[in-house]
């Protein structure tokens, strides 16, 4: 029974990796690489990394202890079988963390994650009533409303870094925060809506795409202005450089939107992500790729609009 459940979960994970456009084996290698990089970076840069690491593992377990998920599991597995399943999946979830803590010789953390593994199997976590986070984008909702709500803490952290950098005269760091804000905005377009949401528009594909890009420019401007305006005051001589980076940000934002709708309602896969990376590394390629993607996006949207 436990083996069957594990096999099913394994198949589900494989399908998810496959849907992302990677062979499952590559996905596991990539996932492992990212996990090691994250863990190594955390232990190298962050104070009390051991406890931060344990907290991350606990959050992971809390997701598995979510009440609706466990209600479902309890309808499938009765009594001790249910408990065994919960212990098993918690153990799988904390194993990579425990192994890394072991390699680091962080014994307290090692014990704590296993305690969390066992305790987590006996408790359920109810997702509390979510507070409504106000956004400045309510008049034109969707990507920026949802994205802002998911990233506002990180956004305010970036504002703090940007303002501090500007105050101490570190222009490079301030520019970097602008780019990071644009990077956040790019990620807002990873959300995949249903074809119904696109279909609802009484616009031509061209009008739809232009409207999306126009809104993205306006809304991203709202997000970068709090960093840009103080920068312009302090580094006025570098206004041209700041403008250049803004143009870069807008260009890649347009790229992300157009690329999304070339394959919509399918998800952008790893090949598309690679294309963006190539364009970031060799910026002029963007001007060759973008018109082609634009034409493909119009053709693709014509099926829905």
């Amino acid at each position, binding site marked *: 029974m436990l083996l069957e459940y594990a096999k099913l979960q394994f198949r589900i994970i494989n399908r998810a990796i496959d849907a992302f456009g990677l062979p499952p084996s590559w996905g596991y290698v990539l996932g492992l690489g990212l996990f090691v990089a994250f863990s190594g970076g955390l232990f190298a840069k962050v104070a009390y990394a051991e406890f931060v690491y344990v907290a991350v593992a606990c959050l992971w377990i809390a997701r598995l202890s979510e009440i609706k998920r466990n209600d479902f599991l309890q309808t499938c597995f009765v009594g001790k079988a249910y408990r065994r399943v919960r212990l098993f999946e918690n153990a799988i979830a904390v194993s990579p963390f425990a192994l890394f803590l072991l390699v680091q010789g962080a014994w307290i953390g090692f014990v704590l994650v296993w305690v969390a593994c066992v305790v987590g199997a006996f408790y359920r976590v109810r997702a509390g*009533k*979510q507070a*409504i*986070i106000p956004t400045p984008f*309510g*008049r*034109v*909702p*969707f990507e920026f*409303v*949802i994205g802002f*709500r*998911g990233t506002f803490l990180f956004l305010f952290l970036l504002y703090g870094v940007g303002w501090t950098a500007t105050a101490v005269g570190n222009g490079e760091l301030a520019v970097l925060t602008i780019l990071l804000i644009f990077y956040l905005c790019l990620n807002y377009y990873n*959300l995949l*809506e*249903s*074809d*119904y*949401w696109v*279909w*609802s*528009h*009484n616009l031509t594909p061209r009008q739809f795409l232009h409207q999306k890009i126009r809104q993205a420019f306006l809304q991203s401007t709202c997000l970068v202005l709090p960093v840009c305006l103080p920068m312009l005051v302090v580094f006025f001589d570098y206004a041209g450089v700041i403008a250049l980076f803004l143009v870069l940000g807008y260009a890649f934002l347009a790229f992300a939107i157009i690329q999304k709708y070339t394959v919509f309602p399918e998800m952008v896969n790893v090949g598309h992500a690679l294309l963006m990376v190539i364009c970031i590394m060799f910026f002029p390629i963007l001007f060759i790729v973008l018109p082609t993607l634009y034409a493909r996006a119009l053709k693709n949207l014509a*099926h*829905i609009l």
Partner: protein
Amino acid sequence: MIVIKQLAKSYGSRQVLQNINLTFAQGGVYGIVGENGAGKTTLFRCIAGLESYEGTITCSTGILKNSLGYLPTEAFFFAHITGREYLQMLCNARQKPLPDLQASNIFELPLDQYISAYSTGMKKKLGIMAILLQGNDYFILDEPYNGVDIQSNLLITEIILKLKSLRKTILISSHIFSTLQDTCDEIYWLQTGSFLQKATHEGFEAMGEAMKQNTIGDKMARLDSFLC
């Protein structure tokens, strides 16, 4: 008026709809009934233009999708969006201003809460409200009564009758035959992708009986064979 001629739809070698010929007049309410998998939702998605198809679907008032309010069986919502924002989004999509929601919130929905906190019925009601606010001329309501409480069922029936009085054209599918009897001018029985029967008011009862016979058949006897 919507005219459908020789509509056919297949997914690979699987024929889902075939030889569909229909005319939906202005101000008419039309019911589509059929078992799960009969092709009701595919038919609606074809009419909406959400699926490619063979045959023709024409609308006397121009591009159908621009004045069509489509309520899917299961509407899609993101977690961190409120009811008010969803309505705003769908009104924006049709360049319609969002009206005063305090007055137009006929289902008394908690519009400033995230939709993820809504029940199935509340999501359905939000979907209905959105397509009403868009000011459409045509409506496709795919299972509008699913998951909705009795009080709201009554309200939905009244809404359909009100839309009919305003000369709107409405297509409804429902598993509850009686709800269609209350509202429809004609009911079409769809089976494995083509129409088996059509009935007007006088024939509704006979159609209901025929459906019952067709659906139940010898299944009770078969059930007896392993229950008793």
